[in-house]
């Protein structure tokens, strides 16, 4: 439970930390699209090269970055197993009923796994190098056009930043409740799945109640500091584009061009 590294900011002063959050968000979106545009390993190699550069320039420890993949290991193995077992191909190694293990299936599953890993790594680079406040400012700024159709963009952004800010607080709270229930004889170690699910309830109920109480108090504290919805607020941190953002945009353009070129000229899938 303590290892909720996904979505956690890593404080450092690096090229990436100083980028405008809007640029980082758009870069991430472009990166995700490009990963799906790539139809061969060369394309993924271009993405991986850019990602490695990003990681190196971010000054976030590599171990910490790789840890974010841990959360999806199960998903990776599961999809890989499905693809290996059921993907039809020409070079068949083993076939029985609907199960068909082929060279193409294995290659395809590796390809998909790589895509997923790149996706998660790039997304966590965004959250490692961007504070929740900057991130929500970025989202708010990018969603500004929606204000014209009366979407409460600012309120949504604030909800998002408070949710992110409460991750460590609620993690601590969960740990506390878990210990309290253990002290009262709760059993969280059972191997029986039904019992395991049942054991979550004595944690969830107090956690929910405590979260509601916290929300109530936070609401009071925010009101006491003159927060009222609908009133025009100003921003202390103003987003401004610098030469770094221009570099990022150029890298992004190169990434898109690189992947498109590999797709066009080295088209053979995988």
């Amino acid at each position, binding site marked *: 439970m303590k290892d909720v590294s996904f979505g956690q*900011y890593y404080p450092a002063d690096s090229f990436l930390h100083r980028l405008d959050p809007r640029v980082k968000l758009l870069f991430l979106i472009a990166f995700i699209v490009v990963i799906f545009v790539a139809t061969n390993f060369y394309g993924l190699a271009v993405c991986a090269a850019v990602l490695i550069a990003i990681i190196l320039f971010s000054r976030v420890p590599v171990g910490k970055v790789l840890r974010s993949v841990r959360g999806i290991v199960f998903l990776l193995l599961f999809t890989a197993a499905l693809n290996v077992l059921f993907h039809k191909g020409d070079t068949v190694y083993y076939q029985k009923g609907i199960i068909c293990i082929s060279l193409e299936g294995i290659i395809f599953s590796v390809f998909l796994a790589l895509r997923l890993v790149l996706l998660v790594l790039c997304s966590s680079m965004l959250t490692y190098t961007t504070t929740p406040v900057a991130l929500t400012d970025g989202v708010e700024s990018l969603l500004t056009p929606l204000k014209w159709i009366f979407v409460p963009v600012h309120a949504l952004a604030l909800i998002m930043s*408070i949710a992110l*800010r409460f991750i460590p607080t609620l993690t601590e709270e969960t740990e506390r409740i878990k210990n309290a229930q253990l002290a009262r004889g709760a059993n969280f170690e059972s191997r029986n799945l039904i019992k395991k699910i049942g054991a979550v309830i004595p944690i969830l109920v107090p956690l929910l109640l405590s979260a509601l109480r916290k929300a109530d*108090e936070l609401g009071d*504290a925010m009101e*006491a500091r003159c927060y*009222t919805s609908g009133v025009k607020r100003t*921003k202390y941190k103003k987003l401004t584009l610098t030469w770094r953002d221009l570099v990022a945009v150029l890298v992004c353009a190169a990434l898109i061009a690189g992947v498109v070129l590999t797709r066009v000229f080295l088209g053979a899938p995988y």
Partner: protein
Amino acid sequence: MTAQSGAAFGRFGLRGGSNMKAIEFCGVSFRYDEESPFAIHKLDFSVEEGEFVAVLGHNGSGKSTLARLSNGLLEADEGEIRVFGTQIARKNLYDVRKNVGVVFQNPDNQTVATIVEDDVAFGAENLGLAREEIGERIRFALQAVGMQQYRTAAVARLSGGQKQRVAIAGVLALKPRAVILDEATAMLDPRGRREIVEVVSRLNREEKITVIMITHFMEEALLADRAVVMNRGEIVMQGAPADIFERQEELITYNLAMPRIGYICNRLRAGGLPVANTLDSETLAEEIARCVS
């Protein structure tokens, strides 16, 4: 307080000094619902501008309700509440809150942002101030609570006392004329409690910010100009802290424990050592030395 931070205070012109009442309750009653007893009952209470008042009382004595009523977080059922001469009404809540800041008990539940300076900025942003002004106010507020070196630190990594100092800074960024601490030290260790008490008494002394400190730790009331004891929604005792603490039997009936030094004083006198009444450990030491020699 350094000369530099003193200059910062001066620049923001927080000094008061007039004889205006900061907060005034006239016959105020409040209860949380129809069936429950009054949390505050026909209360008349006022705090002068620049005063440091400690409000003491056991759990459920109505002291937190007092804080929430003063800031407009709760609306009185009966009576009038005036803040710096203006009666609290729905339409002027914004101005009331600009003048009266409240610091709550749990520092974790009043932090809005992850980074110290973003959190301190929150109130100033709500006032719609210009960026430069917000930056200045953050600098001033963090300096006032002695946290300037933590400006870009993550709030989650600070100690309880430091978090609570950030919460006070968040309130100071609104440039309030009065600050209410609603059991702001209750969740802190002794060191954190001392930090907070020092910060607020300094704000009061040097900046003439009105301070109302709600607490159930009697020692914290020592630095106040006046102590007020509440019981069942009413004020039952008030006066200089030292005088209040002398009325030991009475305090016990309101479920309040005597500060240790006061207790030692009383025991010494009962045991035949004629020490003068004090709540300060050094004075007591001198008193004992005097009596023994």
